[in-house]
């Protein structure tokens, strides 16, 4: 028997972040050398200026023009690097020891010019409110956020902005995590799929991501997953940052890099591993194929992989909206028809007042165990805030040409599509729909 992949994750919980003369960890306080971090971010020449701000839970603050959110992580032992393919080689990760700063997110905020106005592949507004009714929409109202507000040099292509903004965020995250090297973490947890009780049912996680093109893309070891056919991956690869998000198309339904590394479903499956079931692995798939035959094929292939993997049960989540629910539903159908018991997490519709039907754009009768993670369809009023980070105005309705509203004021939103992770479907949140 060869060794299985075993990852030890050391967590350094952070309770406070401040700027100081030297970037270091002082107990649970993260001190950041502003100028050194700024120099790191600016070194690629694509940004004219960066403004670095710390935003903490409970503040009357609003973060806007938000792009990705990244947890500071660093590989301290074992093969590869965190965020492989971007910060290091494509060596397979998921073994050895990784350190993370718990409760911290590095975020990039930038106003990317909306040149290809209209269509899917454009950056849409993303908002995090740290307090008030908007706070429940995002896990990042609960994290200490290091926001890099990037002022872009003009005249680069969408692809260049996209890539350099991502690298700036990932590098900043690793830079902050470097404070933990040579230290012992207050908490360690080992992630290992070794099966000690073979009689338990075998469960897989079907992780359907979105990857269609620039600004609506997910990367695996730095490689775009635009053409992904379902494949089997080890959950530890994801804990080590093998999945990186470049998806800014609809900020409410996206899965940022931070959540790919802290996927609550993987957490649940590991928590119950060896007790309720044996967690056997992750099937990575993508939605948004353009043809029904490709959608059906993707679903069939997931089910077949799960069957070859002798799975008894599956949990499925999907990223994005509309179109991608078809792959998800067909996958549930294919899994259930293969005798694999499946539950899924989905957002729902319901219209502005909750009376619209149906609740899902597409469904199959086999989808009999769905967990709701709320909806984006209800209007939402955000109160005024004292502090705005990431810009001054909110860009609304880019498809209609865009109009700008002062961001600190109270905002009446038709839907919560702009609320960052508001209907993200990996299940971090407690919002749900229910019959009244």
């Amino acid at each position, binding site marked *: 028997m*060869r*060794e299985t*992949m075993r990852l030890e994750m050391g967590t350094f919980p952070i309770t406070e972040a401040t700027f100081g003369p030297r970037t270091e960890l002082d107990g649970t306080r993260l001190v950041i050398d502003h100028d050194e971090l700024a120099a790191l971010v600016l070194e690629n020449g694509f940004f004219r200026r960066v403004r670095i701000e710390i935003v903490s839970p409970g503040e009357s603050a609003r973060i806007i023009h938000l792009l990705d959110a990244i947890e500071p992580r660093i590989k301290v032992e074992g093969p590869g690097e965190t965020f492989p*393919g971007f910060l290091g*080689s*494509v*060596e*397979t990760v998921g073994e050895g020891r990784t350190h993370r700063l718990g409760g911290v997110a590095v975020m990039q905020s930038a106003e990317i010019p909306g040149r290809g106005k209209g269509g899917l592949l454009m950056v849409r507004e993303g908002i995090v409110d740290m307090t008030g009714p908007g706070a429940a929409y995002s896990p990042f109202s609960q994290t200490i956020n290091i926001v890099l507000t990037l002022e872009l040099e003009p005249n680069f292509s969408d692809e260049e902005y996209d890539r350099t903004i991502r690298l700036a965020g990932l590098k900043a995250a690793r830079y902050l995590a470097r404070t933990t090297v040579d230290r012992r973490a207050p908490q360690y947890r080992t992630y290992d799929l070794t099966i000690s009780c073979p009689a338990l049912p075998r469960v897989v996680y079907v992780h359907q991501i979105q990857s269609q093109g620039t600004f609506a893309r997910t990367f*695996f*070891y*730095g*490689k*775009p997953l*635009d*053409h*992904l*056919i379902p*494949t*089997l*991956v*080890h959950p530890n*690869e994801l804990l080590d940052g093998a999945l990186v998000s470049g998806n800014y198309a609809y900020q409410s339904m996206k899965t940022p890099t931070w959540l790919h590394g802290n996927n609550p479903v993987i957490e649940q499956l590991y928590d119950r591993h060896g007790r309720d079931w044996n967690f056997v*692995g992750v099937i990575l798939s993508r939605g948004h194929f353009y043809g029904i*035959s*490709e959608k*059906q*094929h993707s679903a*069939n*292939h997931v*089910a*077949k*992989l799960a*069957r*070859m993997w002798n799975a008894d049960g599956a949990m499925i989540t999907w990223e994005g909206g509309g179109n991608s629910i078809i792959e998800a539903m067909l996958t549930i159908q*294919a899994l259930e028809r293969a005798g694999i018991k499946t539950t899924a997490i989905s957002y729902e519709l319901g219209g502005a007042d909750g009376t619209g039907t149906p609740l899902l754009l597409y469904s199959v009768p086999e989808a009999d165990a769905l967990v709701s993670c709320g909806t984006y369809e209800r209007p939402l009023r955000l109160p005024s805030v004292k502090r705005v980070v990431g810009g001054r105005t909110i860009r609304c309705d880019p498809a209609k040409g865009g109009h700008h509203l002062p961001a600190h004021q109270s905002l009446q939103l038709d839907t919560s599509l702009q609320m960052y992770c508001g209907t993200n479907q990996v299940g971090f949140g407690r919002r749900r729909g229910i019959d009244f």
Partner: protein
Amino acid sequence: MQLDVGTFPINSIVFDHHTRLDGDTLRINRHELIQMIQEDPCIERAEIELAIPGESTRIIHVCDAIEPRIKVSGPGVCYPGLMGPVDTVGRGVTHRLGGMAVVLSAEYPRLIETGVGAAHEAILDMSGPGALGPIAHTLNLVLVLALASGYSQGDYNRAVQLAGLKVAHRLAQTTEGKAPPLRRRYELTPVDTTLPKVVYISQFYTQLNLPAPYLTWYGMYITDWMPLWVHPNEILDGALIPGAVGGDAVRPSSWEYVNNPIIARLYEAHGEALAFLGVIVHRTRFEVFEEKQLSANQAAKLAKLMGADGAIVTWIGAGNAFIEGMLTVQALEREGIKTVFMTYEHGGQEGWEAPLMFTVPEADAIISVGSLDRAITLPAVERVIGGDELCLDPEASGERVPAAGELRLPWRLPIASGIDHWGFGRLTCIEY
């Protein structure tokens, strides 16, 4: 997943008024098949000829060779995605006509002048020194297709391929309702857990920038894919087949895909000497080294997740795609998975030159299936199917030569199935 393959061995093919199976004689209504093929506007004219092993016959402009297979019970169809929906195949009962192939012969207009996308000549000799691959030893029903002008290479590829698949399907239909003389069951039954677990990593190159990126999986072009874990029965049912742009030596025919001898051998050994875990379909020929390395690493990791102790790696194509082969061997060995790699060699016309273009120290168990580089002379033949002339070197001279004459080939690339990537035969290279 349990698949029963029923074989109807064919000993002779004759043209007749009705298409039917008469014992081991396949009777074919040529007219009916020609009409079916000519329904496609991309095909201006079709003719059907018969080529028999041992004859002094040469088939030219070979695009592919397809084995007639049909699903008679269970989900899906044979050659899914192309001949029917994408239902997962590999279960139920499949019938095949044994010992024969539908060979496609078509000369593509030179829409793509040079490079990997250009159609290259492929020659299939039914006897003599050029009768190298398995499809030189099958009864071949040759569809000679004249292509209509005004379409794209992608259109032609699809039309030629579908002509072959439709004819193969029609012929396999003759077995419906009949009991196959030979029957074999393919199933990855649970076996003794102490046996070494073996995975077959089958590498395929594809080129996603081409109009027809060559390889299809359930009818979808394999493009920018990561390694794919599949059930061997899916391959037996034709889920994975090449395109029909040209069937030269480094591009095995569809017939070889569904009869892959490594899969057959691993099935035979399953439960006896080893536990066969399945197949990893591994796309190669990435453009960037990082991507090659990633795909190699991912194949090795997949094998590890599957619990493999050992792996057999094969590849097809030439040049570039070989790098993934070696990197995969390296990644597997580093994961502690004992690996055997099968490849042809180069070595130049005389065998003096380096046999392999790129190597890694971990590749310590290589099976040689012969050389691509050795010169070969094909003698003159009595009969040519597919045309009168051929062009062996369109990029250099563009010279057209009579197809029936002696052909002095500097290497074996223009011979259809001229390289035995998957070990049908016993040809190897040894050091002198």
